[in-house]
């Protein structure tokens, strides 16, 4: 029983890691930038959802607003900040890391901004669903209706993304532009615009993660920071440029965490992420589904 309970805990948190990993992978694939600001963007969109919920008193109505907000924030970050940065920087080692440094700066900026607007108090962004675990006979399992909606929501987002990438022209353009930007340009694809759309998708995924997970904890300017670390580790485990890899990496990490927590103790949670990361990099430097030289080429 304990084993299954632990698995269920892992599944729910893994689904959230997977969403965050998906957001990081989408940006990495389209622009070769590790977007540290993703945690900030997600928190900003979650505050937006919180405000909408305060106005409408309806959690479900607030989610689409958070998603749209997350997409718009991401599109702004890429379309305005990243594009200007790339345009102004010349070739060389600095131009390659400048965008990554910029995302770090942006994370700090967004965090202070949210702190200024909403304060650093722990706010409650509540879901109408119960956070209490389902009962099976006499036993309460550590899996609540909110956990269920987390898993369903994550699966839904992944399903929608998979369908877009596989079956639509936009998806084809997104894939082509991420693999071979120059050839895509020569084929007539507006690669800059397509990249911004990729960022917007990432922002939407991060927003879903924030809106679904926050009711299980609390909302504060840095309440999603740990999620960024987990999402990043999950993305690397999955190979950094594979969407399916991100999902598998997230679930694997979630379940791995749950077992470490259960059988070893809570004190090692944070370091466990890095130990898992190092182990994966030792055994499979490309990640479980990474493409040949994907990380090195970049």
């Amino acid at each position: 029983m304990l084993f299954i309970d632990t698995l269920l805990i892992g599944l729910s948190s893994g689904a959230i890691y997977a969403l965050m990993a998906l957001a990081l992978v989408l940006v990495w694939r389209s622009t070769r930038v590790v977007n540290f600001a993703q945690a900030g963007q997600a928190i900003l969109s979650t505050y937006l959802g919180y405000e909408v919920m305060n106005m409408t008193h309806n959690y479900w109505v607030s989610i689409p607003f958070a998603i749209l907000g997350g997409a718009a924030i991401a599109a702004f970050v890429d379309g305005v900040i990243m594009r200007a940065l790339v345009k102004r920087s010349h070739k060389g080692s600095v131009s390659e890391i400048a965008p990554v440094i910029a995302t770090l700066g942006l994370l700090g900026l967004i965090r202070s901004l949210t702190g200024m607007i909403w304060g650093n108090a722990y706010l409650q962004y509540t879901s109408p669903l119960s956070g209490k675990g389902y009962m099976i006979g006499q036993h309460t399992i550590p899996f609540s209706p909110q956990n269920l909606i987390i898993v369903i929501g994550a699966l839904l987002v992944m399903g929608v993304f998979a369908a877009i990438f596989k079956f639509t022209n936009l998806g084809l353009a997104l894939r082509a532009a991420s693999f071979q930007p120059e050839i895509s340009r020569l084929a007539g694809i507006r690669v800059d615009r397509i990249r911004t759309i990729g960022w917007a998708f990432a922002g939407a995924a991060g927003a879903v993660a924030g809106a679904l997970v926050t009711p299980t904890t609390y909302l504060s300017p840095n309440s999603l920071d740990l999620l960024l670390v987990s999402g990043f580790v999950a993305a690397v485990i999955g190979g950094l440029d594979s969407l399916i890899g991100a999902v598998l990496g997230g679930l694997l990490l979630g379940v791995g965490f749950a077992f470490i927590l259960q059988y070893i103790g809570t004190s090692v949670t944070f370091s466990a992420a890095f130990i898992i990361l190092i182990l994966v990099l030792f055994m499979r430097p490309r990640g479980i589904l990474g493409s040949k030289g994907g990380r090195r080429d970049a």
Partner: protein
Amino acid sequence: MSALEVSNLSINHGAIVAVRKLSFTVEKGQLAAIIGSNGAGKTTLLRALSGLIPASEGTATWKGKSLLGQKPENLVRSGVAHVSEGKSVIPELNVKENLALGGIWRKDKKDVAIATEEVLELFPRLRERLQQSADTLSGGERQMLAIGRALIARPDLLLLDEPSLGLAPLIIEQIFEAVNQLRHRLGLTVLLVEQNAMSALKIADVGIIINVGTLVTSGQSKELLADANLRAAYLGY
């Protein structure tokens, strides 16, 4: 006025001047071969004409409009297609998807379907491999795919960068024959960049010979082929 006019064009490649004050013209419907050895500036020239890199001086116009300072994706949309060096296909996508890219932005979806069908008739090998990843194609098939994708955009100017590179002689002949057929059938103007002077000049109307970024000579390809001095010095046979 000629359809394609390049005048006094210079292009820098870092600190090096890769193309220096180059001028030539190509008439509508002509196939012009730009011949030169490795490092002559041929690829640089095409990259500038398709908007991938900026020119430092001079002009280049197609049907009276400047080619310089435009984004490649917009040039393609206005009919200037560039098949870049090294089989410009996307290996991570399958053949069908690579072809679809060529018409993804076009509004006239009916004509995209017609153009795709024409390409598959021209290169039946591609039809057999539609679901295969482009990575699994042979060099010749990749070149067919790259040219096919460009044709689906219905270009009127085709810039071809060394389609013969790394291909067996028999395949080179097939590709060149296909290009020659195409331009007669579709009325395409073609700028063909080649090291393989013999094969290129055989199908070309005019030849433009460049060496270290400057024009050596240009003229009717028949005359160039007949010129013993040129043959020895630049055509390599």
